[in-house]
């Protein structure tokens, strides 16, 4: 039951905020309620470690002869770090909101709700629980995005993003069905080899990296705090699955090709992140780039490495996206957080570079520039003037804001040393140094010579090619063709001569069946 405690804290706090907003709109302690709830949540996640690892399930779905799965959660070395990162993120969002014009309890309640679903997703013990939590997150995101979008193009992007997520969910279900066909019930403690690739593709599809797709051409006017929670929780909940896929389950001839495809997507994302006008505009590319690194670790038979990148995405990214009030004196915080991305020994991303298979170790090379681009972009955006000046804030607000940011950094450091078994490693130190060197060069290039591109969705012919827009146009053309064929067929059987057509089709079908029976 301890495993559900943080989720309950978040849900109760969200409900309290909602009721207060409806019943007592003038209530002045909404922020205090939300902030207390998030701190309790962080504490609750630490409680998971009592009697670690363990599984907890809700009453089983009945009848058990039909339903082979029931919602269940697993507290172990991989769900705990993700849970801590998400709990820390939600706390940071609330605590740092003090310097932003974000004082709507409903937005805080929504942030807490998304985090609650995120916790349920990262600790899912079986595919059923995971897809339930994913869908809950997707539906909240759908509603939030639809409410915040204003033009039809953005709306279309929202629907495409939702559809891509659903396809990812369908792939997880297909993996479970394939396992069932082989007589094995899939849970995350034992994923059968035939399911591994589907799960990996599901994650890639949900994150938009495999195949590369960017449904959100630009970020909507959703609030910084809630937007950060929405994007990072959604990404983390998908990435957490990678840690569950054993390396033998993705040992297929397709692996090298997937590594190349992912690298191409990651390079494009890293470049666009570096070029973006600010960190919020570039946020979709941060997610893509980090997701590429996480996927590559999994593909190189290092599932724990995917956790290293996934957690860096959440904590490092969370820091930068919430670092809206800046001053020169606080820059060291950003540099400290950015250092976690460097994969230097005993830092959070250090276990991201080792490979589980020597044959695939060479594939870290195309990923080094991705890491360098992401690091350079991180520092470049951190150097950019923020939304407001920290000096202009009252002392107590500065304190609360800095506490929120420091919490994320503390979690980042803690996870690097104590996150999971094998987290504190030297890693591939030369790779870390090489990418650090490249990042320094790219940073100089970025600061001196590169202009910042305004809309994240812009790009020329190369962007069009790399984003696989040509492929999507081709697929869309196929859909239109199928649509026309379908309409022609429907028109024929629904028209005046429809009954005759139907009879003819029936005779054809019967003759086919009769032939098959012979």
């Amino acid at each position, binding site marked *: 039951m301890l495993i559900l405690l943080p989720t309950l804290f978040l849900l109760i706090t969200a409900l309290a905020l909602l009721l207060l907003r409806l019943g007592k709109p003038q209530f002045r302690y909404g922020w205090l309620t939300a902030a207390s709830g998030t701190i309790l949540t962080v504490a609750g996640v630490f409680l998971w470690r009592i009697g670690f690892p363990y599984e907890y399930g809700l009453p089983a779905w009945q009848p058990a002869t039909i339903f082979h799965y029931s919602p269940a959660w697993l507290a172990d070395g991989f769900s705990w770090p993700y849970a801590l990162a998400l709990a820390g993120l939600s706390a940071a969002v609330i605590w740092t909101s003090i310097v932003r014009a974000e004082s709507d309890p409903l937005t805080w309640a929504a942030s807490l709700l998304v985090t609650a679903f995120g916790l349920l997703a990262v600790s899912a013990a079986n595919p059923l629980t995971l897809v339930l939590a994913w869908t809950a997150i997707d539906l909240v995101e759908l509603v939030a995005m639809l409410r915040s979008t204003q033009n039809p193009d953005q709306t279309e992007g929202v629907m495409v993003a939702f559809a891509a997520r659903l396809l990812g969910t369908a792939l997880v279900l297909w993996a479970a069905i394939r396992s069932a066909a082989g007589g094995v019930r899939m849970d995350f403690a034992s994923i059968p080899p035939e399911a591994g690739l589907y799960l990996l593709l599901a994650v890639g599809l949900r994150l938009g990296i495999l195949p590369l797709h960017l449904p959100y051409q630009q970020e909507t006017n959703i609030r910084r705090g809630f937007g950060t929670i929405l994007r990072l929780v959604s990404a983390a909940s998908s990435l957490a699955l990678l840690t569950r896929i054993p390396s033998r389950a993705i040992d297929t001839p397709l692996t090298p090709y997937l590594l190349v495809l992912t690298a191409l997507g990651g390079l494009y994302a890293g470049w666009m992140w570096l070029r973006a006008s600010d960190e919020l505009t570039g946020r979709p590319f941060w997610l893509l780039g980090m997701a590429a690194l996480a996927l590559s670790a999994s593909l190189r038979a290092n599932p724990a490495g995917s956790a290293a990148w996934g957690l860096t995405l959440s904590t490092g990214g969370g820091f930068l996206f919430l670092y809206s009030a800046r001053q020169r004196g606080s820059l060291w915080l950003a540099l400290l957080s950015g250092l976690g991305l460097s994969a230097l020994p005993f830092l959070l991303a250090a276990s991201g570079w080792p490979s589980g298979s020597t044959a695939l170790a060479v594939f870290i090379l195309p990923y080094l520039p991705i890491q360098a681009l992401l690091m350079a972009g991180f520092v470049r955006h951190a150097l950019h003037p923020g939304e407001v000046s920290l000096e202009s804030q009252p002392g107590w607000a500065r304190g609360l804001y800095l506490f929120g940011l420091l919490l994320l950094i503390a979690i980042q450091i803690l996870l690097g040393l104590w996150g999971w078994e094998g987290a504190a490693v030297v890693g591939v130190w030369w790779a870390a140094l090489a990418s650090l060197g490249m990042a320094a060069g790219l940073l100089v290039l970025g600061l001196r010579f590169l202009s910042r591109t305004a809309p994240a969705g812009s790009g020329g012919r190369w962007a069009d090619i790399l984003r696989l827009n040509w492929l999507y146009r081709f697929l869309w053309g196929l859909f239109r063709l199928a649509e026309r064929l379908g309409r022609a067929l429907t028109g024929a059987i629904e028209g005046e001569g429809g009954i005759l057509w*139907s009879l003819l089709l029936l005779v054809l079908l019967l003759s086919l069946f009769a032939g098959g029976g012979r």
Partner: protein
Amino acid sequence: MNASILWIFLPMGAGTILLFLRNERWVAFVAGSLSALLALIAWLLPIENAYAIGNYAFKLSSTFEILGRRLILTANEQPMLTLIYGAAAFWFIASSSIGKAHRLIPLGLIVTGLLVASLAVEPFLYAALLIEVAVLLTTPLLLPPHQKPGRGLLRFITFQTLAMPLILFTGWLLRGIEADPGANALIRQAAILLGIGFVFLLAVIPFHTWIPLLGEESSPYLTGFVFWVFPTFALLFGAGFIDRYAWIRTAPQLPSILSAVGALMVAGGGLLAAIQNNLGRILGYAVLVETGFSLLALSLLEAQGIELFFLLFVPRLIAMGLLALGLETLKKDAAGLDFAQVRGLARPWPFAAASLLLAALSLAGLPALAGFPIRLAIWESLATVSLPATAWTLVGSLGLGIAALRAAAALVAAPAQAAWEARESWPERLFMSLGWLVLFGLGAFPQWMIPLLNRLPAIFEHLGH
């Protein structure tokens, strides 16, 4: 007191009286209360037991003779009666919120009574005649006075009427089979005729055209009721056939035929739904997908398959009711249900749009919604028999999901200055919100259906035992 009087003649009589009552709310209240009461009685008072109310003692007897035929409702049928009248109460009560009570309820009650009679009649084959009468009575239900019938309605009557002689003729052949069980030629002829009869009755592709046409041309709520009631009874009637006749039940080809037809309906219905630009037609194709899933569940034959067959009923009822309610509400503000005509309506009608989306996604099997647990169970069971059939059904479900998302994209595509508001009445909001809660509740806790499920399979003597 006779069970047939209570569950067949009383609703039909009430329906006839309600034809003359003009007040929408009263009609809905009386019919909703009566249906709910009948459902409750079916749940609580076993047939063939004696009861006393004060000094008045009575026994609910099971058999009623009429014109040399018998209507038999036993205790085994009571869970089914609970389901049917509970569902009728749901449709009738919600109809008042959208001003359709008077159009739907009187004939709806009579149709329900007739269809219950079709499941109770002995000899069994007379059911085809009763279904035909119900089909004919549906015409004034769907067609407003002084309006010419559309192609969908005509085709509905044509296809359902074509089913009747085929099934009756099968009955004639069956007597010969009972006399000589080894007559293989006769068995083959009976099987083919019966199969074609059910192809018409269940609107199997390519005889499905009345469904999307009707969805496009008629009132969505009334069509929704027809789409729920006829396929449900046709499926129960069909399953009754399989249960009753050993030569059908034990035919080695039966599972593969049911599974092939089911997969065809799910995949065909889903893929065709994905290319539609009319919300009413999408509702129609969703019905095909649902029928397909029921056939797939039946194809599993064993106890598991029958449980799945019955488990599908409740989520289907809620989702179709909610979808029809949402569409009817949107239609107040639109000339038709084409995407172009409903563009941007999510902003003034968010409850209706959300209901439509959630209901369609539940029918598509979206996780966390009521339709999902049962679909997952069907996919898993089917995968052990045929992986390609499973893949096709998954594709069909995705097709329906795409249709739902395309519909949602049209509904939310409003001009930038359009504000979010809620024009739905409070009763509409209440019914829709309750529908959402049930969809999510059953999606997370399907075991809530267990009390009903435990008793429903008793309807069949052999299937699932």
